[in-house]
């Protein structure tokens, strides 16, 4: 019986597929199945379970804590040393928590792999209890994330202690969908030795950048600055100029301010003051070989700069009418369905976000503390004294902004860099920059 049924559906599928192939030569060889049979192929067993997924329930407020021993899976993309530190902190939690909660870390490769796996798991309704994620990964399945507002309101020591920009980012969908964890920011890495040799001060403003770039160009005939993230630099520069970038309706800078920003950027490239990374891949390679004086990149990449025969300096991003710096790094999202698991997962999140564990995480990985109190511990202060990168990041923590997530934001992120590259190759003028970028962005809606 079963076999028969299977045979029938196999036949139907074969027929359907052979119709797709649709080559006249083969049609004569087979008797076509009646067209009415084809829809049968649309009802595979796999689609059924997805339908019964309940909308994620509101997190219950923590009454008297009554958490049963349980296992929590946490998917992450931390590799190398980052993974060892995360494992160590997690082991501490597993050993010390009073409820018998066991958090299992699952390494899912690099960010791109984790993104793909989360997406596939959302489709198959097999999401883990906890996972690292960028906001823009979540758009298709944000309603599967647990709303953390009640947990934060009733069972968190001091949410106000979390850096404001992180709080905003974690609540941009109208509710708290995540807690910040491995955060970094874009900073200006520079060749201190070269700066001293040429008598250049660390640039504070756009005007400083242009002046310093001219000095470097005249003396060394190399570019002064480069940007690892071309979409990021457009966004940050607009903010630095007091302008807005994009929102759910389209580009917001088709005006004087936007033109001013484009003038700054196009001049940098057209004069050879700035360059594209090209075949070198990352600017960390370029600066290591002293082929550029400085670059803007993620603070998490500091270990890839090999400063041999020169000293590395790190500074906050230069501003114009104000300062603004991109932030990077993922947050932790909760997908656990069962309320006991939610409570258990929250215990873990509270633990790893505690001032002490956060400080340990930050000091050992180079990621930024997500809370003010960690910055103020003696341990982290000592770390900043030794670590120029951490100090520079802290200095601009008040200037963080995040890229908003909406339907078109992923398309914008992928289209802006190639658009900017083309403008650089074309040596386009400021007005062309503005028109082209605005059009490229608005085409994505």
């Amino acid at each position, binding site marked *: 019986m079963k076999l028969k049924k299977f045979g029938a559906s196999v036949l139907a599928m074969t027929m359907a597929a052979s119709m797709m192939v649709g080559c006249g030569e083969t049609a004569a060889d087979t008797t076509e199945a009646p067209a009415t049979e084809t829809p049968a192929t649309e009802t595979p067993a796999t689609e059924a379970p997805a339908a019964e997924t309940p909308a994620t329930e509101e997190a219950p407020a923590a009454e008297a804590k009554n958490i049963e021993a349980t296992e929590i899976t946490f998917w992450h993309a931390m590799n*190398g040393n980052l993974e060892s530190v995360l494992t160590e902190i997690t082991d501490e939690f597993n050993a010390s928590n009073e409820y018998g909660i066991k958090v299992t870390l699952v*390494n899912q490769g*690099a960010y791109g792999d984790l993104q*793909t796996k989360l997406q596939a798991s959302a489709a198959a309704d097999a999401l883990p209890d906890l996972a690292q994620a960028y906001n823009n990964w979540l758009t298709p399945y944000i309603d599967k994330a647990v709303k953390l507002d009640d947990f934060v309101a009733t069972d968190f020591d001091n949410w106000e202690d979390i850096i404001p920009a992180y709080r905003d980012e974690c609540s941009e969908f109208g509710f708290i969908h995540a807690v910040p964890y491995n955060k970094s920011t874009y900073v200006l890495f520079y060749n201190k030795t070269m700066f001293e040799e040429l008598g250049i001060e660390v640039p504070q403003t756009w005007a400083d950048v242009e002046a310093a770039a001219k000095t470097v160009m005249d003396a060394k005939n190399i570019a002064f600055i480069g940007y690892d993230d071309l979409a990021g630099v457009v966004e940050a520069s607009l903010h630095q100029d007091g302008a807005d970038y994009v929102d759910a309706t389209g580009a917001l800078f088709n005006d004087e301010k936007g033109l001013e920003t484009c003038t700054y950027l196009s001049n940098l490239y057209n004069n050879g003051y700035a360059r594209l990374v090209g075949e070198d891949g990352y600017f960390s390679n370029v600066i*290591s070989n002293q082929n550029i004086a400085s670059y803007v990149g993620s603070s998490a990449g500091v*270990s890839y700069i090999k400063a041999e025969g020169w000293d590395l300096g790190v500074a906050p991003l230069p501003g114009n009418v104000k300062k603004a710096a991109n932030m990077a790094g993922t947050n932790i999202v909760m997908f656990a369905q069962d309320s006991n698991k939610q409570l258990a997962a929250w215990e873990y999140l509270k633990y790893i976000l505690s001032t002490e564990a956060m400080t340990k995480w930050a000091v050992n990985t180079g990621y930024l503390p997500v809370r003010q109190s960690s910055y103020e511990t003696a341990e982290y202060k000592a770390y900043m004294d030794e670590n120029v990168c951490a100090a520079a990041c802290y200095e601009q923590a008040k200037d963080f902004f995040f890229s908003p997530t909406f339907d078109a934001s992923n398309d914008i992120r992928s289209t802006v860099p190639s658009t900017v590259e083309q403008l650089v190759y074309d040596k386009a003028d400021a007005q062309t920059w503005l028109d082209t970028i605005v059009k490229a962005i608005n085409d994505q809606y």
Partner: protein
Amino acid sequence: MTTKRKIVNVIAAILKYGLLILGSVFTVLPFIWMISSSLKTPSELIAVPPALFPEVPQWQNYKDAWAAAPFARYFVNTLIVTTCTTCGVLVTTVLSAFAFSRLNFPGKKTVFSLFLATLMIPGEMLIITNYETIINLKWIDSYKAMIVPWISSAFYIYLLTRFFMQVPESLYLAAKVDKCSDFKYMIKIMVPMNKQAIFSIAILNIISSWNAFLWPLLVTNSQEMRVLSNGLVRFQTEAGSSTELIMAASCMLVMPIIIIYLFLRKYIIEGVTRSGLKG
């Protein structure tokens, strides 16, 4: 006449070997570069101009790469998955190719075109649905999940069908006269006659199975089930990657395949070429 012919022969031989050696240089160089990079320090890797060989070979890279993940366990898993997949592929491929090349059945052409058509859709589109299927079968985190979807490939079936068709039809008819069953004919005559093709299919499949990355990552969760290629990403982070460790791990990944290749080659091909294929 004969001396002239001899001279031509010598010149031809020099040209031939010259060309082959030049080609070999281009072919091998990337490979040597990979090995030498695996022994460099990070600053040697990005040095301008690059040195072909490291000043001091950094054998430590191999130790570090080996320590970064449970590679021994990964190795066992990779071996299991590759062996099972390849055996499965060989069985399904030989059966299907035999059916397409020797048997008559209605709809043969259609089914064959259909098989071929399955190659034309980019695999990237199929992954998510297949992942859902694996979840629904409750195969997640098992060897089955890594093996079963890959034990049949139109790519190889098409190839072997081509080879089987080369075998003269008269042999088949003669076998029929001798009352040799189709199955016996396939095993006793078709398979041995196409050893080299079957070897090629085996080695191609071993390599693709050995290097498969995204699918094993998707369908496994525990460290105990991961495979070697999953270890490669251990050296990549959001802001850069440790190229020297990737290279060291890549070398470790590749060596077993080369050994398998050389072993299979010796074992299978040499026997064939000696015995000849005159039928």
